[in-house]
Each structure stands twice: as structure tokens, then as C-alpha cells.
């Protein structure tokens, strides 16, 4: 629901014109020959004006910024914990996680609640953009040319006409996140 609303909202926003959306529509029609198995559905979002995507299957829900309680003695990319209907869920600040400068929290800031195995984790992003369908053949393995996010977190690059969507490996984010924080606490 949120995503649909966002899509509408996004139509006028900078950088992505109606033209782009037109293109996307056309692509979708073009992509009809692909079966569902060949299509990757991504929830795409922005961090520092770059578009990223995560597999829609790991997305539990998308939230507006609720109250976040700071968690002391945790790595700085852990923004804190939120109350998701009685569950205490850690929130990772994507900007800090991927080494971007801190951004402002505004109306567009969202937390994408990701589910990995038994754990839920929130990823705070600048803006949730849309749901895109990309044929799997259009997904390349990550090249070293990608700036910013280190390659451990990237599972691939999705090409969509003139757009590039960096597909994040969520399992790895959570895994590394634990791994690294363990290292942090050990060191």
C-alpha cells in the first residue's frame, strides 16, 4: 500500500520524470514473454540519490520513521530499536552502514523491515521509490566500479533501460552486520 502511494508521490519528484515512468511501463509490457521465474521483483529505494533494490520477498513491510530508541554500546550504524507491534527490532542506518555521510530524516525517510530467517531488521533509507520488475538476464554480477557500497553487500546490478539498480544482498547485510559487530566488540 505504502509503495503504491509512494509511486504516485514520486511521479513529480526530481530526477525521475513521467517520462521515466512511461518507459518503465513500456518495459513491463515488453517483458511479458518472461515468466515469473525469470523476473526479479525489487523494492527500490534511494540512498544518497543512488537507487538500490532488495528482493521483494525479504521485505516484511515499509514504515515511516517511528520513534527510535538509541541502543548504547552498539556500532554507530545501529540507529536504535523500534517497536514493531510488540517486537523490538534493530534499525540499521543504511547511510552509515555503507559509509555515506549522514542525511536528514524527513517525510520521505523510510524503514524497510527485512526478514531474514528468524530475525527482522529495519533498514533506514532516504526514500522508498517503487517496485520494479527486472528480468534476471538483465542482472549483472557486481563490478568493482560501483562506488560507495562495498561489494560484500551487493548481489548484482540490475539494468533497466537507462537505469542501474544496485541490488543489495540482504542476507549478507544482516550476516556481516552481526559478524562485524562481533569483531567490533572483540576488538
Amino acid at each position, binding site marked *: 500500500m505504502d509503495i503504491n502511494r509512494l509511486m504516485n508521490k514520486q511521479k513529480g519528484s526530481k530526477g525521475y520524470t513521467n517520462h521515466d515512468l512511461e518507459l518503465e511501463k513500456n518495459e513491463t509490457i515488453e517483458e511479458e514473454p518472461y515468466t515469473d521465474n525469470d523476473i526479479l521483483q525489487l523494492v527500490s529505494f534511494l540512498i544518497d540519490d543512488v537507487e538500490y533494490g532488495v528482493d521483494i520477498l525479504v521485505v516484511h513491510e515499509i514504515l515511516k520513521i517511528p*520513534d527510535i530508541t538509541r541502543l*548504547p554500546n552498539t556500532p554507530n550504524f545501529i540507529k536504535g530499536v*523500534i*517497536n514493531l*507491534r*510488540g517486537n*523490538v*527490532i534493530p534499525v540499521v542506518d543504511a547511510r552509515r552502514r555503507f559509509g555515506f555521510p549522514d542525511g536528514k530524516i524527513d517525510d520521505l525517510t523510510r524503514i524497510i523491515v527485512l526478514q531474514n530467517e528468524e530475525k527482522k*531488521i529495519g533498514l533506514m533509507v532516504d526514500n522508498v521509490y517503487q517496485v520494479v520488475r527486472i528480468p534476471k538476464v538483465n542482472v549483472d554480477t557486481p563490478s568493482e566500479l560501483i562506488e560507495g557500497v562495498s561489494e560484500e553487500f551487493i548481489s548484482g546490478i540490475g539494468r533497466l533501460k537507462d537505469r542501474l539498480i544496485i541490488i543489495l544482498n540482504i542476507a549478507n547485510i544482516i550476516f556481516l552486520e552481526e559478524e562485524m559487530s*562481533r569483531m567490533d566488540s572483540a576488538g
Partner: protein
Amino acid sequence: MSFSLGEYQDIFLEEADEQLQELNSNLLKLEKDPNNIEIINDIFRTAHSLKSSAGFVGLNELSNLAHKMENLLQGIRDGMLRVTPEIINIIFKCFDVINSIIETVASGEQPTHDLSRIIEEIQRLGNPGQSVKETKPVKQKEKTPGIIKTNVHLLDLNDNDKNEIFNRLSEGGRCCILNISIDKTAQMKWVKAQLILGNLGRIGKVIKTEPSPGDLSDDDPDSKMKIIFCTDRNNEFIKNACDIDLINRVECINIITSRTGNAITLQVADSLVFIGTAEPSTEIVSFPGIVYEPVQIAEDKALHSDESDESDDYDISEIQFGRRMTDRADTDKKKAAATKTVKVSIEKLDQLLNNVGELVIANSGFFRIYEELRKITGDKSIVNEFKNRMEGMSRIAKDLQTGIMKTRMVQIGQIFNRFKRLVRDLTKEFKKEIELVIKGEDTELDKKVIDAIGEPLLHLIRNAVDHGVETTAMRKEMGKSETAKITLNAYQGGNHILVEVSDDGKGLDIEKIKKKAIDRGLVNIETVANMDSSEIFNFIFSPGFSTADKVTDLSGRGVGMTVVKQIVSELNGAVTIETEPGMGTRFILTFPLTLAIIPAIMVRVQKELYAIPLSDVVETIKISTSDITTIEGHEVINLRGEILSLLRLNQFIKIKSSLKTDSKIPVVVVGYGNRKIGLIVDFLEGKLEIVIKSLEQNYKTIEGLAGASILGDGSICLILDIATMINKVIFDQEKLTRVERRQLSEKKSNEGYELAESSDYDPGELSIADISENFKSSKPIIFDVEKNEEKPDAVAKEIDYTQGPRAIMFDEPEQISSDKNIHDDSLLHSEKPPMEGSKPQVLSDIEINKKIKDTLSDFRNDLKERVSSTLQGGDIGDHIKSKLNISKEDLNEFQIIANIGATNAAESMSQILKKRIELSIPMVEIKPIEKIPEYIGSIESSYIGVMMTIHGEIKGTILFLLNDVSGFDMVDLLYGTTSREKMELDEDGKSALSEITNIIGSSVINVIAEKTGMVIKPDVPVIVHDYLLSIIDTILATQSIQNDYAIIMDTTFFFQDDKLIGNLLYFPDSDSLKTIVEGLRANVGSN
């Protein structure tokens, strides 16, 4: 490969466990009261249902054993067997075997117990009874001479079996006797037999086997077996079931029923040979007679119905049948009762509890809507209706919450009763006479605790029996009663459940423990000398620690107590030991009331709220900066002669403190194990019941945090893990070298924490003058407020006190006053020149205060306005203060006086009442009289006021004001009266209150007198129970006080767990206040 009984396994295991417990406890009763038919019936019934359920899940061996046991019990019930110790023992043995089988199944393995021996034993014990039974049938010899007699005992059917057969037959099944001959040459004949029984068990029910498979000897050339078997399958199935290798012959004889009058007769009918030759051998001829016995009895009865005396002997079958019927009725009744309880998994309950918690939170959203509605809607009735519904819903949600909470609670009795058996066995083994006394069985504990408490109790009881209790001879010698007593007790104490294991044995030998501790290198001799006994006793919890001279199979290896400590700690509990040489030992296990909800003290650092589990809190105190001493880079205070390490919570959670430089510092003294530290926080917010949520569930364990909790408004507060914090402090202390410590303290000061330096400060000689001097001269701590306020964490939770119902017990008056203080400070400082000698600090104070003032959000102003709503441009208190030329310092002086007074008062009260009482005077305010009712509370409610006039150089009235509910509560608490119920003060109550006022009032007056060097005399207190305004009017009228202000001192009484708030007011006469202030100044100045 794991073994499973299928989908019913869990139910069966749980049921079986309960049944065994019941059997055990009943059998113990029977042992004491062997002739009680009720108990026998109970045991019988339980054994029967155990048998059925075991059969149901396919544990045929178990079912068989239970069946044998049932037979034995049947014999007792029928009066054919006497309850002898042997029988009791064998039944106990049966229980053990059954228990062991159940445990094997529970662990996922196939039970491979050999039951033949125990069955054999049961039969041996059961047989004499049957031979008694045999004596009568002898009379039937004429009917079927010779043959019956010789074979009857071989395959005897008890009444139960008869009834079973009858029931099966009447339900349309069939019953037959299978005569099976096993080949002479076969090895392990009992395996063959077992195979057949197993096969038969799958298609029907084996009623009786003679001899039992285990009794089949390989050497016996005559290997024949008779099986009475019920099924509803046809011959083909039976044949296949028996058709295994080396079975020579199988003959099937059907049993049918016939009815003659009221008597039911079982008769043998046609026979069929499945395997082997049809020609009946000589042995086989005799077989019909075997079953025939009951049949004959009945037949006999039918035949000889005129012979009354004989029929009396023979109608067992009928009587039994009748009784069986009543049994059934009983069982049905029991079943009906049983269905009233439902077994629910804890997970489901937790889920439910979670949901209800969410409901409560969701519901709180309506309060906000209501507030909005109220503002915009003119239609009051709708708004009120909305409010009523909303409140109704909130009540229901709360009820639901408590209800679910209660479902987790289980009575401890079921655990306690298990130990009766243990103690009985142990007593036999050790040849000691011990009585187990059980108290407080109906005390309820959290299911999780109940599940875990068994093991620690087991160890404690074993220890008590093995080491605690002396031998009978020794007891006799010492003049103790020969029967020792071990007591299990459970009761509730405050927020804890206490479980006690006590014995009247020899007690712990402290010297032995000391010696052992030193021997094992746990401690050196010097340290031991300084340890108190409770610390020494704690050594027994160390792994491998045992003072036992020899290791028995029960105890002595030094594992048990470690396990006890470990399990109890895991449940947030504690173990304490009380012991008296020669008199006995008492272990007290303390558990929190429930694990789901814990009481916690809420503390705040800036805007971040943290919870400290109340179980970890020793006390809360307020200290001033000058109380803090730095020893080797660590801040410590002297708390009643004890050096207490301090840990600043804000440093631990790595944010800046918002503590003001000159305010009292709230410290939560927390303890874990034997260690205590003081935790410096910004604010104490009060007590709250919180639900613990794990952080590991979605994240991981974080150092220093025990979890999180969701508060009533949906926000998250983090729960501090005191154990790790204390360990951290200890670790730091031990790790740091002297140099490093110095570096650390330098670094700290660079960071902006200027630590109070008081190397010449001698904690031993702390006097009032010292306090005040230190207070005056101490350097205020400068906090980098600017930096801190500039970067407000945009998402950090700001607790919104103005909206919604408050989940936090928030000390409103204190908050208001502290707000005002901030306000006042800047006001005062900007109006008045700063005090001499402290210029730079005061300037920065002003800056800080301005900053703070600027960043104060609107809700704070709202709160402030509630107090001084009508006045504009500041607080009236300030006007009075400036008019009287009373500075903040003077007020602080008053506060110190009040605090010292309160401490004195609490001490004397504790002594008089022999109860622990703490009270504090946290805030001192000057207020215009007309504002007092508003400040203190409600104009409409009635109060208890105790007035005490004072004369001398200072005049006026001291008024001790209590909301009447708190007042009555206090009187009741102190004197055990019931004035609360009547809402009326009797003479005792009055004298109690007068006394309290006397104590508090005089304490304060004494301090004032001492500090001002004036003479002040208090009068006898007078009690008024009236509306607030009337009370004040009374004072003003009777004392003709002209002044329009009063000094309010908020008093909080901590009486055990209760907290009562009262106000101590001083209505100064004419210029008395000025006199006091001047006196104080003069005195302080001269110092």
C-alpha cells in the same frame, strides 16, 4: 533414529508423568494407612488409565506391566492381599520402571527395558492371594473333576480381566484362548512369545498371558503358552499373528458369554487349530478349564441359587461387575473434571500476552483522540460517551493482561509432593528417620520456575538428608527427637516467592568450610578472617566444593550446590543460607513473582529512559557533588561507612549527562552477588512494572543491556543488565594500572567531567558543618551542555508526558519544581549579582540554564503553568523570595536542613517502631498560601493535618499534611490498625500521627536551631482531619499568622515497599523566616 510414539506422544508423556506423580503420592499415603480402600481405589484407577494410555500409544510392555500392577492392586482391593511393605516396595519399583520407560521415550529412544523380572515378582506376590481365591472353587470339582483344579492357577483371570472380556464381547468383539506350543529346539523362546504378543497387540488386546514370555525357559521342553486375547479381527489375522518360525501348534478356543438371570457367564466354545495337528494333546484337554473358573462361579451361582451361603461365596463376579460400574461412574466424573483444564503452551500464552499488551497500547491512542475531540466538539454527550467506552475498553484490556499473566502461575505443591517419595527412599537407604513436612503447597509460581525448581530442590533435600541430618543414634545422644524434620516451605514475600528447604540437623560447619576454601585456594587466610559468615557460606556454591568426608552416591562430589546456584540465578533468583550449629540449616531460594513482568526502577539520562530491575536495586540515595571522592581514578562515596564505587550511567551509555552542577545527584545503589555499586543517573522516574523483551530475538546480546521493554505509550525503554555493569566496574578497577588510572582521570577531565577533588576529604568525620561547607565550596561540575543540546538526536525518543495516559510513575511535583528551579536560577542570577567567590561558575551556570531554558519544550511550560497559572511573568515564589531577600543558596540551605532532619527522623522512627523506614525531603519550596492547595493537591479532597506550633526565637506552625488515604495507610502500616477501612482516626492513629509529626518536625527544628544557634521549642501537635483550605485557615486563624507564604517540604516515606507522600509545611510567623535565613547566613559565614 529417534523413536516416537506418533502424534499423541507429547500428550501421553505429560499425562503419564502426572499419573505417576499421583500414584507415588497415593502409594505413600497407602503405606501409612494400608486399609484405606479409597486410596487403593485411587491408585487402581490411575494405574488403569496409565495402562490404557500406554496401550493406546503402543507401549505394550508398559501397558502390560501396569496391568500386572493393576492385578496386584485388585487383589488388595478385593481384600485377598494384605498391604505389606513388600507389596508397597514392588509397586514403587514398578513406578520407577514405568518412569524410566517414559523418560526413555521422552528422550526419543526405543525403550528396551526387561520387565520380566519385575512382573515375575509381582506375580509371586500376587499368587498367595490367588491361592486364597482357589480354595472355594474346589467345590466345583464334581462338575469338572480333576482337570480344573490342576490348571486353574495357571491361567487365572481376575475380575478385571473378566470384565474386560465381557465388555469386549458385548461390544461385538471376540475373545479367545490361544494355546501355543513352541518347538523344543527353539532358542530364546521368550523372544518368540514376545513376537507373537507383539503381533497380537497390533490387531487386538492381550488380556492375559500364562506364563509370561519372560518366564519361558529355553531348557523347558514343555514350552507352551496360553494367551487370552480379544480382537475384532477374524481367524486369518490371528493365524498370521501367530505364524512365526518354530511354532508347532496354535489352537484357538473362543469364549462366549451367556446370561442367566443377573449372572453373566463366560463360556468356552468351539476351538480351532490354526497350525499343527488338530489332534488335541493331553495337555490341551485341560485348557478349557482354565478359563472356566469364573464361568463356573457364575454357573454355579445360577445352579445353586437356593444355597444362599454358597452363592455368597461365588458371586464375586457379579459383585465385581457392579463395582466396576461404579468405578466407571467415578472415572466419568473425573473425566468431566479433567476437561475443565486445558493445556496450553507457554509460547502461545506469551504471544497472547504480547497481543494484549499491544491492545493496551493501541487503546491508549484513543485518549489522544479523545483530547482532540473534546477540543473541537461542542456535543459533550458524545464525547463523554466516547470516553466511557474508551475507559471500559482499557479496563477490559488490563483485566485481560492480568488474567493471562495469572495463567502462567502454577502451584508449587506438585513439585513438593514429588519429594515425599525421594525422602522416603533416602530415609530407608540411610537408615535415618526423617519426616518431610510440606507447607505452602498452594503458593503459585511462574511455570518456568516450577519447571526448573525441581533440580535445585532435589540437591538441597539430598544434601539435607545426607549431610544435614544426623544419624538416629547421634540425634538421640544430643537429646533431639529421633525423627528428623526436613521442611519444604513456599510463601510470598513482597514481590518475591520464597522457597525454603530447612532441616533440623547439625548445621553448616563454618570452620570446615573456611578450611576447605583455603585448601582449595579459593581465598587466603587473611581475607577469610575479614569475611562474614554469609560470605563464607557462599563458598559451598563454588564448583567442586564439598566438605563431605566421603563421597556417597547421593552427594559429596560438590556438584549439587553449584547446580542449585546456577539454576536459581538463571531464574533471576537468589539463594541465602541460614544455619545454626546443632540446630539446623535453612536454604532460602528467592524468585521473582513472575518472569514475564518485573518491577523496575525507571531512571533517565537526558531524555533516554532506562529500567533497572528492582531485584538488583539495593536503595536509592541522593548525594551532592562534594560527597564524591576520587580514589585512583574511580569515583566513590562513603555510604554509611562503606566505600561504594560509582558508575556514571551516562558514561556507560556514552551520552552527556544533563545533571545540573549544584543539584543533588540521584544515585541508584545496585547489587549483584556480594558486590554493590552506585549508579549515577540524571533523574529517578519512579517504579514501573515492565515486560522483558529480548534483544537477541532480532539482534544480539548487547553488553550492559538485559533486554528491552515496551512502555504503555508504545515507546521502548532499555533494561540495564546490572551484573555486567558491576563486572565491568570490577574489571576496570582491576585492569587499570596506576598510570593508566591517572591517564583516565585526566582524560575524563578533558572530556568535560570535572571531578570533585577532595583528597583531604575524610569520610569518617562527616558532620553537618562539613556537608554545608563542602556544598558551598565544591566546584560545580561543568557539562558541555551547548554541544549536547545543539545536536539533539532527531529520532531519539522524547517522552511525551502531555499526551496519552502515562505509563511512567512520574513524580510530578518534583519535575515541576526542578523546572522552576531552572527558571528561577536564571531569573535570580540575572536579577541579583552572583555570590562572591564563585563568579566564573555562576556565569557558566547562567549560560547553561539559559540553554536549557531555551530548549525546554512546550510541555514543560504547560506543567509549570499548571502551578502558577494565574500569574504572569514568573512565579510568585520568586517574588516572595526576592522580597524576603532569600536566595537560592538559602533555599538550598533549607533543603540540606530538611534532608538532615529527615535522616534523623527516619532513624529515630526506625528505632522506635523497629521497622525499616526511610524518608526524604526532596524539594523545598516557598509558596504563597493561596497557592498551597493547588500545589499540594486537590481542594476537594480531605487531608489529615498535624499542626505543631513552635515558640522561641522562631515562631510559626509546622504542618504535616497527608492526603487522608496515605495518612490512614501510614498509620495502619506503622501500627497495624485498620483506620483505612473506617476512614476514621482513632486515638491510636492520632497519637501515631502526632508522634510522626513530632519526630519529623523536631528533627527539622533541631537542625535549624543548631545551625542558627537559636532556641526553638515545639508544642504538642494537634490533629485536624478536614479539607485542605479549612486546615490552613485553622492554622492562620488560631496562630494569627500574618504572612502569606509558607515553606513546603515534600516528604516521601518509604516504608518497606510502599511509598507514601506527605508534605511538611512551615508557616513562619512574622519575620521568622527572615530570622532563620539571617541566622543561617551568620552562622555559615562565621564558619
